[in-house]
C-alpha cells in the first residue's frame, strides 16, 4: 500500500544527506583540481540518492528486468558520469572547452545517452522486444519514430536548459526541475504506478539539497557554474526517463508528460519582453509562478481522474 510518510521521509532524507554532504565538504570543492571538486559534489548527491532509495526499500536487480531497474542501474549512473565529465568548470573560454578532449568525449557520450535512453528503458518490452519473442505492440518504424522524437525532445530540453544556465537562470531552472520531478512523482502515483512515482522523490530531494548546498557554498566561494550545469543535466535526464517510464509502462498520457517535461522551460518567459526589463527578484517570481501554474493544472486534472477512477476502488477495498 502507498505510504505517503515513507515518501516524504525518503525525500527529506535525500535532501538532508545531499545538503550536508556537499555543504560540509565544500572547501574541497574549492580545490585547484577541478575533477576532485566535481567528484566531491557528485559523491554528495549520490549519497543522498542512495539514502532516499534505501528508505523506500528499492532493490533493483542485476541484470535489470524492468524499466525502473534499468533507469536506476544504467541510465542514472551513466547520466551522472556523463555530466561529471561534461561539467568542465572553465566555461569562460568556450573555444578551448569545445576543442578539449574531455569536452569531445563528454559530448559524444552525452549524445549517445540522449539517443539511447528511450531504447534502454524500452528494452525487451512490448515496444521493442527481440525478434524471436514476437510480442511487439508496434511495427518497427513507429517504434523508431517515437524513439527519435523522444531523443530530439531530450536534446532540445538539455540544450535549452544549458542556454538558460549560461544566461544566469540556473537557480530558477533547477528549482523548476525539482518541482517538475515532484509533480512527476505525484502524477505517476495518481495514475496508479506507485513505485514509479516514488522513484522521483529521492531525486527531487537529492537535487534540491545539492542545489541549496551549492547556493550556500557559492555565497562564500563564488558562483560554481559547472556544478549547477551538472545538476541541471542530471535533472533533465532523470525527469525525461521517469516520464518516459510513466508514459509507456504506467498510465500517464502524452499531454501529462509533455506539460510536465516542458514546464521548467517556462523560465524563458523572463527573458523576453516585457518581463526582461523587470528586476531580478520579480523575474524569478514570474519564472517560478509560470512553472508552478502548469504543474498545478496537470496535478488538478490528474487528481480529478484519480477521484473518479481509483477512489471507488480504494473505498471498496477499505470496506
Amino acid at each position: 500500500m502507498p505510504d505517503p510518510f515513507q515518501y516524504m521521509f525518503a525525500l527529506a532524507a535525500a535532501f538532508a544527506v545531499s545538503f550536508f554532504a556537499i555543504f560540509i565538504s565544500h572547501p574541497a570543492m574549492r580545490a585547484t583540481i577541478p575533477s576532485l571538486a566535481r567528484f566531491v559534489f557528485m559523491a554528495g548527491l549520490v549519497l543522498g540518492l542512495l539514502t532516499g532509495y534505501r528508505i523506500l526499500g528499492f532493490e533493483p536487480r542485476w541484470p535489470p528486468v524492468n524499466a525502473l531497474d534499468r533507469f536506476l542501474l544504467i541510465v542514472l549512473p551513466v547520466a551522472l558520469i556523463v555530466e561529471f565529465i561534461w561539467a568542465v568548470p572553465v566555461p569562460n573560454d568556450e573555444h578551448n572547452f569545445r576543442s578539449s578532449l574531455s569536452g569531445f568525449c563528454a559530448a559524444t557520450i552525452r549524445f549517445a545517452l540522449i539517443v539511447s535512453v528511450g531504447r534502454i528503458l524500452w528494452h525487451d518490452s512490448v515496444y521493442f522486444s527481440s525478434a524471436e519473442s514476437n510480442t511487439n505492440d508496434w511495427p518497427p518504424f513507429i517504434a523508431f519514430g517515437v524513439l527519435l522524437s523522444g531523443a530530439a525532445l531530450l536534446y532540445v530540453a538539455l540544450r535549452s536548459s544549458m542556454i538558460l544556465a549560461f544566461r544566469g537562470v540556473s537557480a530558477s531552472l533547477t528549482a523548476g526541475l525539482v518541482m517538475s520531478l515532484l509533480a512527476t512523482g505525484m502524477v505517476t502515483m495518481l495514475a496508479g504506478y506507485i513505485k514509479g512515482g516514488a522513484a522521483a522523490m529521492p531525486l527531487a530531494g537529492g537535487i534540491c539539497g545539492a542545489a541549496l548546498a551549492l547556493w550556500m557554498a557559492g555565497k562564500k566561494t563564488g558562483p560554481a557554474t559547472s556544478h549547477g550545469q551538472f545538476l541541471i543535466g542530471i535533472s533533465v535526464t532523470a525527469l525525461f526517463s521517469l516520464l518516459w517510464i510513466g508514459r509507456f509502462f504506467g498510465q500517464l498520457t502524452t499531454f501529462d508528460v509533455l506539460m510536465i517535461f516542458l514546464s521548467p522551460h517556462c523560465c524563458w518567459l523572463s527573458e523576453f519582453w516585457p518581463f526582461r526589463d523587470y528586476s531580478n527578484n520579480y523575474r524569478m517570481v514570474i519564472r517560478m509562478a509560470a512553472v508552478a501554474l502548469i504543474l498545478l493544472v496537470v496535478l488538478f486534472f490528474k487528481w480529478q481522474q484519480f477521484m473518479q477512477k481509483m477512489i471507488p476502488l480504494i473505498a471498496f477495498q477499505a470496506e
Partner: protein
Amino acid sequence: MLRMMTLFLKPLSLLLTCCIGAGVAWSADEYDYDLVHSSVSFKARHLDISWIHGRFNDVSGKFIIDRDDAAKSSFQLTIKAESVDTANPARDEHLRQPDYFDTKQFPTIEFKSTAVKVIEGGYEVTGDFTMHGTTKKIVVKLMGGKEIESRGVKRVGFSTELKLKRSDFNFDKSAIGAIGDEAIILIDCEGMRK
C-alpha cells in the same frame, strides 16, 4: 548383386521409417487449447477475510499426449497478462501497471512442461512457470485426460489448482498489502483436435 540389394533395401527402409513415424503420430495426440470451453482464473485473499476473483481472457496452448509413454507428452500454456479481468475496469488497469503484472514489460505468463508422469486420475507435470520476468520450476497435478469425440472433434479435458506466492516472482513487496501474497490459480481447460 550388391546393386540389386541396395535397390531392394532403399524402399524397405523408407517404408519402415514411415511406419515408425506414423506409429509415433498415432500414439501422441496433439491438442490445441480451446479458449471457448476453458478458463484460467485466480483468487487472492483480501484483508485476509475474503477472496478476490479474477481471470485471464486471452489464453493459448498446446498439449501433446502420448498415451503409451507419458514421458513423451508435453503441455504448454501462454496467458496474455493484458487480458486480466476482475470485473472492475479500474482495478484491471491498476493490475496491468508495473506495480503488479507490468504487462508492457512482461506481456505473457507461460508454462512449459519439462517432465510428465502418469498418476492416478491424471498426470503429474513438472515445468517452468514464467511470470513477471521470473521463471520457477513448479509441479502441477493435471486431473482428467479422458478423451471424447463430439461433432467430429476429439476433446480432452484437464483441471488443476496451484498456489503461487507473488513475492517468489518478484512482484513489488510494497504492493503486497491488502491483497495477500499467495494467489491460487485455477485452470480448467479443454484441448481439441480433428
